[in-house]
């Protein structure tokens, strides 16, 4: 877990961990906070609208966000987000295994930084 102080936190990666998976041309990334106190901050920072806004060329379809309240996690389901998927994509990472780090690399909601 991160050793950084609360006022040094900049990225989603500083408060949460994530894993990416693929089915066809749909990518899903599940994201979990280390500390339940950060869950509201995660929910504010990682919204379906923001994902569409941040990656318009990559995420071409709908984004659905499932909230797993009791485990303090989110599941982002991004359709048409794998450049065609393993069948068609010529991206070296045609499964989008690294997409979890696209999400973890987002900045935290600016209004929440101390």
């Amino acid at each position, binding site marked *: 877990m991160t050793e950084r102080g609360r006022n040094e936190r900049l990225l989603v990666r500083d408060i949460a961990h994530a894993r990416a998976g693929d089915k066809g041309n749909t990518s*899903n990334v599940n994201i979990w906070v280390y500390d339940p106190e950060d869950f509201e901050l995660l929910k504010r920072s990682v919204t379906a609208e923001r994902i569409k806004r941040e990656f318009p060329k990559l995420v071409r379809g709908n984004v659905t966000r499932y909230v797993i309240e009791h485990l303090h996690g989110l599941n982002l389901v991004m359709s048409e987000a794998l450049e065609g998927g393993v069948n068609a994509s010529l991206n070296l990472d045609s499964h989008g295994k690294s997409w979890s780090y696209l999400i973890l690399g987002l900045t935290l909601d600016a209004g929440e930084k101390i």
Partner: protein
Amino acid sequence: MAKSNGTFRIGTGAGFSADRLDAAVDLATRGELHAMVLECLGERTVAFAHRDRMADPQRGYNALLERRMCALLPACRRAGTVIITNMGAANPRAAAERTRDIARALGISALKIACVEGDDVTSLVRPDQPFMDEPGTLADIRRPIVGMNAYLGADAIVSALEAGADVVIGGRLADPSMYLAPLMRHHGWQNSDLTKLGAGTLVGHLMECGMQITGGYFADPGFKDVPNLAACGYPIAEVSAEGGAIITKLPGTGGRVNEATVKEQLLYEVHDPASYLTPDVTADFSRVTLEDLGKDRVRVSSAAGRTRPEKLKVTVGFDAGVLAEAGVSYAGPAAAARGRLAAEIVEKRLKESHGISSPVRVDVIGASSLFATAGKARADGEDVRLHVALRTTEREQAELVLWEVESLLCCGPAGGGGYRGVITPAVETKSILIDRDLVKPTFEILVT
């Protein structure tokens, strides 16, 4: 012998086609398992296996089957552990016969090997069959079909186990169903016990990717540290008759099992957590609870299930020609600029000199590659690699890609070295649905 205190001990011996073997041997030897599952089939893996079978009717099963069986059969026989696997891929019959021959050569007598068939539904599907999750029908794809496999559920595996099988080998056995089946058999769960089918499906879902729940696909130094990942252990589930389970691993192995590793796997490749469809049940993971017991033990409970799906998913594989990939590296001052110049040259020549109109992908690894379409790039890479890729049904075009990239050594930017080029077969897969009543799985037992 396997431990037996009411709970069923089931372990993973492979979570994908190329998964490790040494950790599986360790688990088979020390794990005191009732059952070990080797899940080795993805949608594309089965399509490639069909191509292998077309080239040689005796092949078409997992390339590591022989090595895995040689290493695991003796240990599993000694421990009384049943092996369940979809290593049969496009040719379960040949895989079962090969396994029987290996067992005989190892001196393992009276071993019962069940060969599960019936997943190949090529003769049952019409060309106007619509796709499951996109517009169009099979007839719209003007490429040769290499195979069609329906996802089989637990039923045929349960029947084979009831007939006394020590090894169950199939083709497109659904991943979680291979775990659910021995749980149904051991605990006496019926197809109408939907909550228990949901619980067993959760166990299968958590276990089916092997080390992804024991620290693999997880480590992130400084944030998520994993001890001795190089010697990571495969997972074990201890499953009660009610369906609750403890996920753990062997003492002395590397890796870790904690709440975080279990959470990441819980929703891996899951969309709606309340609706995870398998051939056996619509599983509900939305209310699953986790309890970290320490010492690499996590209790999972409260999975649920409803409705047995009336249709089965079918993967249809098409021959998609070949994938050509070629690269050259640049290092030192302004390497990224030289890499980008090389990229421009290759794109221009493939298009204008050779008339290749299909999309060619050009990356400059170290400056912009995996996240290129996401809009992330850096201009200052000092150690970069041009990577060019093209998927094509015309072999000549693939060879041109390699030639053009190699020609950069003398004709491209300064200091380019380390050319490599490779052409590999390509497949395309689509999904359709089929009425489950049409699919009739069967099994036959071979004895050594």
